[in-house]
């Protein structure tokens, strides 16, 4: 019972409070850096929206930041394929 109470106090209420080790973030930075130019640009725009956002808003904002604005749907599909963002 006491163990459960102790574990309960360790629960983190907000996921954003978590601090990740620098090596984790650096690995992800390298992975993002390895993406294609437009994919990289699009994921950066996505990161400005936050963890969850409307696809419609992204489609309205992102094209001006891409090298091929007309192909935003393809770029987004590519990001989905490599499991960077999901529905």
């Amino acid at each position, binding site marked *: 019972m006491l163990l459960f109470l102790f574990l309960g106090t360790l629960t983190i209420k907000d*996921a*954003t409070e*978590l601090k*990740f080790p620098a090596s*984790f*973030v650096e690995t*992800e*930075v390298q*992975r*993002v*850096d390895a993406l294609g130019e437009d994919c*990289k640009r699009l*994921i*950066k*725009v*996505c*990161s*400005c*929206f*936050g*963890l*969850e*956002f*409307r*696809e*419609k*808003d*992204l489609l*309205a*904002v992102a094209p*001006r*930041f891409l090298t091929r604005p007309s192909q935003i749907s393809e770029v987004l599909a590519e990001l989905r394929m490599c*499991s*960077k*963002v*999901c*529905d």
Partner: protein
Amino acid sequence: MISNLRFIVDVGVFLVSLVSLVSLVSLVSHLCFSSLLCYIFLIFTLLLFSSQVVPVLEKTTHLTFRHQILLEASYNLMLTSQRQEVHCAIADLFDSSTVETELAVHASHHMRAGHTDRACSLLCAAAVAAIKNNEIKEAVNMLTEALANDENKVNQAYYLGLMAWESVRKLQNDVGGSMAMNGLLLLAEATGDSSLIPRIVTQTELDESHLEWNELQDMPPEDETDVSILEKATSLCMISVAKCIYSPSYGHKVPERLEREFGFKDIAMPGR
């Protein structure tokens, strides 16, 4: 939001079905009654399938990052100027959008885009909404952020007044009273009106104030837009200070400060 609207439409469809069923039944039995119901049915159908209802059915897809680390990594890859540009575009989109966006989210994009004034006004609106929903912690966080970024002293006093009143309501008189008095000092500095600073008044001034008080309306105006930020800030700060004076058992720092800084003597403090 969308699910709520869908629910409303579903209820509408249910009502149409119900009315049509009743009208069919009554068509058989009572001709006059059925014609009336048929009219009702027609109106419901027109409402449901009019252009005002159709956009509600539009599906909104939400995208989510697979992991918070991925978001942070992507965000850290951008230069400050690039982030500002994207946040600016997002803020402009939300400004012109008809789709309701959370005020705090909207404010954060304006803040990061460097539109401090707009961000602070949105933060304040979000805080007031949070207070109405009894989400005090969130409201205080938003007001603190607005206070740190807004350079307008009247606005700063308003944020302090809101926080002060909420603290005093929770009987945290020392914290609330201190904020309210700082708010009054800011207001006096911004307007050049020294009468806003707590001071000892003559009997004549007191009688005049009492007369003015009696002429006030019993209830505050329903439309808050008519009340200026200056008036709101003044009222909130003054009421908070007054509450601290008249309930000293919950904190005695305000009466002490009044004596120390503003020359008051022998303030009635039954709880002290």
